[in-house]
């Protein structure tokens, strides 16, 4: 599950030159921004049927936070 999530997230961010990890602070990726935000919430809805308001999303920091939210852990 975690590996698939990392693969999906890499695709959303269009990261091709490196690996990403569960403990990464995704807001520090050079690819992060308001446009990437839209792609992330679209991915969470499409693949995980998970919707999140912007105020709650702002509290998420790491890739693991995203994963836990999407999989409701």
């Amino acid at each position, binding site marked *: 599950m975690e590996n698939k999530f990392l693969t999906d997230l890499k695709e959303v961010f269009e990261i091709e030159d490196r690996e990403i990890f569960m403990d990464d602070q995704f807001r520090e990726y050079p690819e992060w921004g*308001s446009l990437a935000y*839209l792609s992330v*919430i*679209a991915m969470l809805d499409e693949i995980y049927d998970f*919707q*999140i308001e*912007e105020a709650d999303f702002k509290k998420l920091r790491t890739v693991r936070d995203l994963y836990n939210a999407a999989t409701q852990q």
Partner: protein
Amino acid sequence: MALLQFDGIGISAMAAAVPHTVINNYEYTHYFPADQVKEVVDKVGVFQRRFADEKTCSSDLCFAAAEKLFADNQTDRSEIDVLIFVSQTPDYRMPATSILLQERLKLPQSTLAFDMNLGCSAYLYGLSTVYALMQQHGLRKALLLDGETRSKVYSPKDRRTAFIFGDAGSATLIERNERFGKSYFSLNSDGSREDLIKIEAGGYRKPSSAETIKEKVVDEYGNIRSEEQGYMKGGDVFNFVIREIPSDIQHILSYSGADKDQLDYIVFHQANTFINTYLAKKLKLDATKIPSTIEKYGNTSSVSVPLTIVSELQHQLQEDKTILLSAFGVGMTWASAVIRFNQCKVSDIVEV
């Protein structure tokens, strides 16, 4: 639940007008570096749009569309009993622009005329209001004019809105005739999301002052606007779309008894390519049935639905066609409809 259905009322003619000035978005780089502009433009999918000059209002675009419609259909103006003007960019705060258009279009004084102030969903609100009025057999023909000059609303120095919006006007003629069959509408509102898209000042809650017209840096990204220019929280709007629009479309399909495969076309509000691609994928819709004008006219707010029909379906509406319409916007409000077209005459787009 605001679900409406009508029988034997439909659209017999349509026309649209756009300003002649074309804005090429990749070259719209006065305030932002070209690489940043390209990134935004690629995502929103707006390559060109039209900007009205400072003298041209929504009403002028609608006037041109209406004159084209009258000329192409030899419409008898004395038969227009209803005129509704839909816009959030009227000529004046008073009087209502519809009344000015009654005079300019030489419609009779017996014409019922008023304005509707709503955002991107407004064509569907306007159309359903006209259909409801047209159940009155005393009314012969209705004219729905829908125009916007959103280029005048948003700051070119705020990258969240600078590359999206364009200007246009449309005219729709509505009549009673058995050939139109049944039509269905779903209309919704949610004022708890009033701050997603807004112009803070210039109304009566916060009147214009020297302070409200000052440009200010409004966020950590250095975007600049005044309180009298519109803002949009794009992420929250997209969240709203995810939550509300697919379910409303499922709703109108089941209410109308139509299967999505029976639809001839699906016309979405042209918000941006990212949102419309998402909706098509989410609802598993056939992309070849979804006409798009976002790339050449941008987001023209409530005009985007009629403009897309006039631009892309001009020659497709002679035969009996079932079309799903869906739109959402500031308020928030959202609406969807399943309507039938039959022998609808669609004019060429007019440049003003």
